[in-house]
Structure formats: C-alpha cells, structure tokens
C-alpha cells in the first residue's frame, strides 16, 4: 500500500486561542421531523474555523431537563461576514432536548472552535463526500470550502427516506454533483454505493474522500481507498467531558504502523485518516 497517511498523528500542542462565549440565538427551528437548525449571533473571534471542527455547547438547564456535561456539536456553517454560527442537530436525549427549547434572543454559551478539521490538499481536485443523516452537518462546511477553492465536488447523500434528505439544494448551489440515495427507494445499500463511486472513479477520478459516522460507509470507503489508492478522512464521534484534551475520556482506537493506538477525538480529531480509523 502506498497511500500517503495524512498527518493526523499527535501534533505538538498548538496554542490557537479557544473561546468560551455567550451568543444570542437568532433562530432555532425544525428542519424536518428529526433535525433542527440553530443559528447563533457569534463574535468574529470564534468564526475563524476549519470545516470539521466543533464547538462544545453548555446546554440550558430547566426544571425538566438538567444536562450537566457540555455537548459536542459540529459546525454546520460559519459565516464571519454575517457573524453567524450554525449547528444542525438531532434531538436524541437530555442535552439536545434542552437545546431545542432555546428561543430567539436567549443565549447559549459555546466553547470553540475545537479540534482538528478536514484537510483539502492543494493537488486534490476531485473530492467525494459521502454523508448519511446528520453527518451532513459535519460535511456541509467542507463543501463550501471546496467550492471556494474551486474544487470539483461529488456529494453522495444517504438517508432513510426522501424527506430526511437535507441540504441537497445547498450542495447543488455549491456546484456539487449531488447523488441522493434512500433506504425507501432501495438505493442506499453498500453495493449500489460502491457501483456509483467506482463509476465516478472510472469517469473523472477521485483525489480524496470524506465521510463521517456510519460504519458501513467507513468500511466501504476504506476498501475503495485501498483498491484505488485514494486518500480520505473521516470525522468521528465519542462521548466528551472537557472537549479540549484534558480528561482523556473521548479516546478511540486507531491502527497506526501496525499498532493500535488511542487518540483523543476532541484533540487529535474529530477528523482522522480514513484508513487508520476503526469502526465500532
């Protein structure tokens, strides 16, 4: 194998400032049945982000919802010009339910930007994004960045059903070739996905692949990456306490140089080399 591993190995501590600021909520609205979009009025200082980075949110406490730890959330959009920070989230438990109660004008304290984001190396012209469900949140700013850098983008968006597919128009506006796949139409299976990607490779070629979350997709891309010698990156999740590297609770195992090593998702990640990642 001669895939160049990306520099996801522990870097010396980078002393980029991290901010903990209270932001006013501009909007917090349902996007479809399961997802909500949270738009914050954010100071310029925290909007110097890299796609793939995240913030650690201090969810509000109420009589019925009392989350204690912060909750990590990928940056869905950062817009220094408008002074906006966007999150796209799924209501799953106490923390995200508490987030969902926020109304316009209330404030939310966010810590960030945190972690290591995606790389788009200079010679990567044809980029492939494969996202499922809320994974779009993580990949959306990457698409914007690719667009700004004038790269060609193919976005395979997978979901349970048509109406769970979000942001297709957004990706199209960015000039991406969008390929929607759904469980309902039976198009989202791994076999079909492989066929589509291999066709793309044969057609224009793919210089780098990006994904997040799903185990099935990880395995597929690892296999394609090995076969066709294409590098890639994946954004991973793990439960977090501190979010900045102090507590070591967020580790996951990675293959590296024949060994299994633990890395902190909040610090060495959340973006890791595709081939080093281990599914769960």
């Amino acid at each position, binding site marked *: 194998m001669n895939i160049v591993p990306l520099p996801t190995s522990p870097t010396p501590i980078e002393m980029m400032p991290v901010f903990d600021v209270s932001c006013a909520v501009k909007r917090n609205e349902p996007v479809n049945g399961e997802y909500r979009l949270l738009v914050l009025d954010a100071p310029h200082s925290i909007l110097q982000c890299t796609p793939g980075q995240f913030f650690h949110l201090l969810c509000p406490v109420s009589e019925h919802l009392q989350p204690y730890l912060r909750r990590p959330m990928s940056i869905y959009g950062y817009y220094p010009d408008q002074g906006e920070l966007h999150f796209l989230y799924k209501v799953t438990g106490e923390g995200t339910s508490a987030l969902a109660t926020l109304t316009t004008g209330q404030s939310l304290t966010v*810590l960030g930007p945190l972690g290591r984001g995606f790389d788009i190396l200079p010679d990567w012209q044809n980029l492939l994004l494969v996202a499922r469900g809320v994974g779009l949140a993580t990949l959306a700013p990457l698409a914007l960045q690719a667009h700004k850098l004038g790269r060609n983008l193919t976005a395979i968006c997978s979901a349970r059903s048509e109406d769970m597919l979000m942001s297709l128009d957004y990706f199209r506006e960015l000039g991406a070739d969008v390929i929607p796949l759904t469980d309902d139409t039976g198009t989202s299976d791994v076999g079909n996905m492989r066929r589509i990607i291999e066709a793309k490779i044969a057609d224009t070629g793919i210089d780098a692949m990006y994904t997040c979350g799903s185990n099935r997709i990880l395995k597929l891309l690892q296999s394609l990456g090995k076969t066709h010698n294409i590098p890639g990156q994946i954004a991973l999740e793990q439960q977090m*306490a501190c979010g*900045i590297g102090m*507590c070591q*609770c967020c580790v996951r195992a990675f293959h590296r140089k024949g060994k299994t090593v633990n890395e902190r998702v909040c610090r060495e990640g959340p973006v890791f080399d595709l081939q080093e990642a281990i599914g769960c």
Partner: protein
Amino acid sequence: MLDLTTQIGSLTLKNPIMPASGTFSEELAQLFDLDVLGAHVTKTITREKRSGNPTPRVCEVRGSMLNSIGIPSKGLDAFKANVIPFYDRYDAPLIVSISAGSTDEFASLCEDISVPGVAAIEVNISCPNIEEDGKAFAMRPSTTHAVITKLRQATDLPLWAKLTPNTGETTEVAKAAEEAGADALVVSNTLLAMAIDIHTRRPKLGNLMGGLSGPAFKPIALRMAYQCAKSVDIPVIGCGGISTVDDVIEYLIAGAVAVQIGTATFIEPHIMARMIDGLETYLTTQGFQSVRQLVGSVDDKEASDGMVFMEAAP
C-alpha cells in the same frame, strides 16, 4: 494590601486555587494564562505506558458525573521529555501526580520523578494496591503508613498524599499519612459509584463502576476536608465538587489552606481564573486582609470536640 498567598509546607502559592489531577493539561493554556493559578497539577502518571480503561469512560448523573478514565499514561520518559519542559515557562509551581501498584514501584517512580522543574509530588494513593487485596492504599491507615514511609525515603521534594473517600477511616488514614511524613493532604479523590442505562441494561461506564465527582460530591469531600483539618497539623488541600467561589470559601472556612478544582473546569473552562477574582472580591468586601484569616474560621464551637471523629451518619 490583600494577601492571597497560602503556605503548603515549604511551598508558598500565590493564591489557593489550583487544578485537580486528571482535569487539567497543557491544552488549557489555549483559554487563559495558566500563570494566574496557584499551582499546576498534572494527570497521574505511571512509570510504564498504559492505555487506560475501556470506553465509555464518563457518564452523566444528576448534576454531576462519573468517570473511569483509569490512568492512561505515556510513561515516565515521555513525561520528562515533554510535560515538565512545557510547564517550565510558568512561575507557578508544578505538582506531579504519580501512582503505582506496589510500594516499591511507587517509591522508585517517586525517586525518578524528583527532578528540576518539579516542585512537589502528589501521590495518588487512591489507586488499588495490587499486593494487598486490591483495595486502594488510602483505604486503610496501615497501607497508607507503609507507602508514605517508603515514599518519604525516596524524595526530598514535598509529598502530598491524595486520600480516597472510599473508606470508613478518614481521620485514621489522615493521621497515618502525617505520621509517615506526608507534607500535605489532598482531600479527596472520587467516590466509587455506578449508573446503569435502563434501556440497554448495560452499565453506563465501560469499566462498570467509576468515581463520582462534581457538585453532588461536595458535601462529602467537604466533610472529609474538615475532619482532616481537625485531626492533623499538616496542611489540607480541599478537593471535591468545587464549582463556584462560594464553594472555595466554604472549603477554606472548613480548614483547607488551598483547593483543587476538577470537574468544574469541564463545564466552565475559565472557572479557576474567575474564582481567583471572586475570592479577591469576597475577601475585600468582607474586610479580610488575607486568605489565612479565612482558613479554618468555621464557627463549630463545642460541637467539634465530640463530632469531628464521628464517622457514622447520624
């Protein structure tokens, strides 16, 4: 002039606020100037490399958390090569926390970590003693005495003994540590606890059980800090559930000469810096000239005589 300093044996700290081991690292320097702190305390290290416990390593309980991080460690050499030099740039003294599974290993690590740049050694004797029945050294006066005696011979640096709440013999253990030569007590480490996910019916921690820390733990650790301050003459450093400047004040009143902040930093990463300001404001508005005047000022009257050593809940 307000005097925020506090004395821990031969060490003078510029203020009584410092982090708790395992809840602090170099990365916090991205948030504020770490030199505002009274001291820096590192995550416990072991001599050899260790990977720590299985995930999930933390979970939330009502208003607090459990952790079973264990002691992942890059080992002594990496620590000396990378961590000690990092903290050299600061004036605040560096306290290194160490652990081992036997008294001999403990002592040899203690000796090898007694190097320039290290101001004091915190010994995490709340870890299991693998030579005995797996109970932590600090659960019993006898094992505490044995390990501290050896450690005392191994270093000239100040030795801080970090106690465990998983014992019915807090004051006896405190006295054993003092007698064996500890220079200060850190009171305390986390309390063994558990949570189960009722949907999956699996323990919420990969390690089955873990240590409770955060606000829920405060009244317990405060009680221990008070008991220790009343029963030994060496300084007591309070630790457990401290989340606000009021909590800091409560521990100082109870008799702690300094405090360590753990879990609160996860929720509010600037909290230690804010507590220093808050303490200053409190002392000024209350007319105190120094932290010293506040320490141990609890108005416990006669009650203290009979009650200090009570270790059964009433």
